């Protein structure tokens, strides 16, 4: 019997791009951060812009994003990622600059920076991971925590009379003239991942046009903080988070 050796490339269906490091991720099983990192870095790889990309990591679960993303990165103070990104982009206007922030970082302590960065129309990509909880510090209430949702600081559920309402900051920034492209995506299913990746590609392509801020919210989960299995967390997210934070484009270029 005659055999032929198949070159390994012919079997290859996926290769880790050079834009992702070999470091194993510290994220909990089922968490959306890993997938989001991966597709963002795949887009950087596919567009061939690794050498021109500078990222900003926040304070929160993705504080170590720079351990996984193989691009130049800065680690910002809590809430200030978009100000740091502004500083980088203003000095290096031909680079692709993104900030990667959670809900507490972007929509609580950093609300001022978020609004003003988008209002100035900084030509950066803001990646906003909304999982309605502070994961890193152990599951406290976030500005996006749903009403009635139990967290370690709302043990009886979030009450609007005491703790206000879930902040739809993406809807807010979409109103600003400085925003060029605003979309809300998810990464919990193959279809959602494909759509989210497309959104990242659009956003980075738009950055070349100097037309304003691109803002991508990823509605995500937190199995550990929500005290659920990954499967339960995704089901709960679809049932409860998506009605509050509907997926889709909020602002697209005309």
């Amino acid at each position, binding site marked *: 019997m005659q055999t032929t050796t198949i070159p390994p490339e012919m079997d290859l269906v996926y290769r880790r791009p050079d834009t992702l490091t070999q470091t194993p991720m510290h994220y909990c099983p089922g968490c959306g951060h890993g997938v989001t990192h991966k597709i963002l870095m795949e887009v950087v790889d596919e567009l061939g812009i*690794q*050498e*021109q*990309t*500078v990222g*900003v*990591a926040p304070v929160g679960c993705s*504080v*170590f994003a*720079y351990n996984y993303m*193989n*691009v*130049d*990165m*800065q*680690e*910002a*103070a809590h809430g*200030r990622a978009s*100000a*740091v*990104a*502004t*500083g*980088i*982009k*203003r*000095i*290096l206007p031909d*680079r692709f600059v993104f900030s990667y922030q959670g809900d507490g970082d972007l929509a609580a302590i950093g609300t*001022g*920076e978020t609004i*003003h960065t988008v209002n100035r129309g900084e030509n950066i990509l803001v990646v906003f991971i909304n999982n309605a909880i502070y994961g890193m510090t152990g599951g406290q209430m976030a500005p996006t925590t749903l009403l009635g949702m139990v967290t370690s600081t709302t043990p009886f559920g979030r009450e609007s009379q005491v703790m206000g309402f879930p902040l739809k900051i993406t809807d807010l920034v979409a109103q600003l003239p400085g925003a060029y492209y605003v979309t809300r995506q998810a990464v919990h299913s193959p279809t959602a991942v494909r759509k989210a990746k497309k959104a990242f590609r659009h956003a980075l392509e738009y950055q070349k046009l100097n037309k304003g801020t691109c803002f991508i919210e990823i509605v995500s989960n937190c199995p550990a903080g929500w005290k659920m299995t990954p499967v339960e967390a995704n089901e709960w997210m679809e049932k409860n988070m998506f009605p509050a934070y509907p997926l889709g484009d909020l602002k697209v270029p005309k």
Partner: protein
Amino acid sequence: MIEHDQGATLMKGNEALAEAAIRAGLQGYFGYPITPQSEILEYLTAQPKGRAGVVLQAESELAAINMVFGASGAGARVMTSSSSPGISLMQEGLSYMASAQLPCLVVNVNRGGPGLGTIQPSQGDYFQATKGGGHGDYRLIVLAPSSVQEMADFVFEAFRLAEEYRNPAMILADGALGQMMEKVILPREGSLPYPPKPWATTGKPASRERNIITSLFIQPEKMEQVNLELQEKYRRLQKEVRFEAFQVEDAEILLVAFGLAARIAQKALELAREQGIRAGLLRPITLYPFPTAAIANLVPNVESLLVVEMNAGQMVEDVRLAVNGQRPVSFKGRMGGMIPTPEEVLESIVQIAERTHTEQVERS
């Protein structure tokens, strides 16, 4: 060495500082208006596009210092300026920058406090400037100008030190130095070269590993190592100490004062000399590193020391550490935006001279 123009011009301290920053090769300024330093931002925004580099009015001092963080990390020569309450808001960012070893210039045109305080001149931020100011074990390089000329010259010195040591540097001025007009011979453009910054996040070429700028070192062993490196840097920094001494050779009373207070002390010194009291003056120019050794060396030759400040007595603590109990150290200060007069300082000098004389008579 800084090269200067030929002729002198008459300028406000804040404006001279801003013009000097441009001539020092400023590439980015991020700031927020606050009295008595808003002229710096105004002067820079009034320049032809590109002359002052990137100039951006931020939405807050918090945003401003973090824009400085990003821009410095991107490799640019950057600065911000503010006054006391705004500088307080920047402390978190300065701690992060010190930890991430990012150079920048921060100008504090000190006003009276605490709280919202007053817009009048003060030196009440000495502790904040020289002891760290934010959280953790770190220091700023601190320069204290006492004239409009030095407001301009020290911009060059501060950028040089900040970039050489990869550490934030502060010019600690006060409302009077910022607002008053004086003759100034401006430093010449282009006399401060840009050092290479291979650590900057400018985009990762295939030829090198990615650059990461961070102040997060979660493992305590690593965090301790970073702290040891910082402390070693601060030790190396000691050789940059600068001070100025007036008539200390025969002085029996040594005045120690910085910034505007040093000018008042110098006038009081002249008045004291007219009365036959041999006073001298040591003016720290770098407040960190502090001229501890210079003061300690003078101690055996003097009878007594008098520290003059526009605060409740802050630098006096560093002077007492230098004197180490060997001589009495007195303090004369005004607070809350009040400036002591030379006559007030003279009164203190006369009292000390009389007390010293009485003690000498008693001893003999």
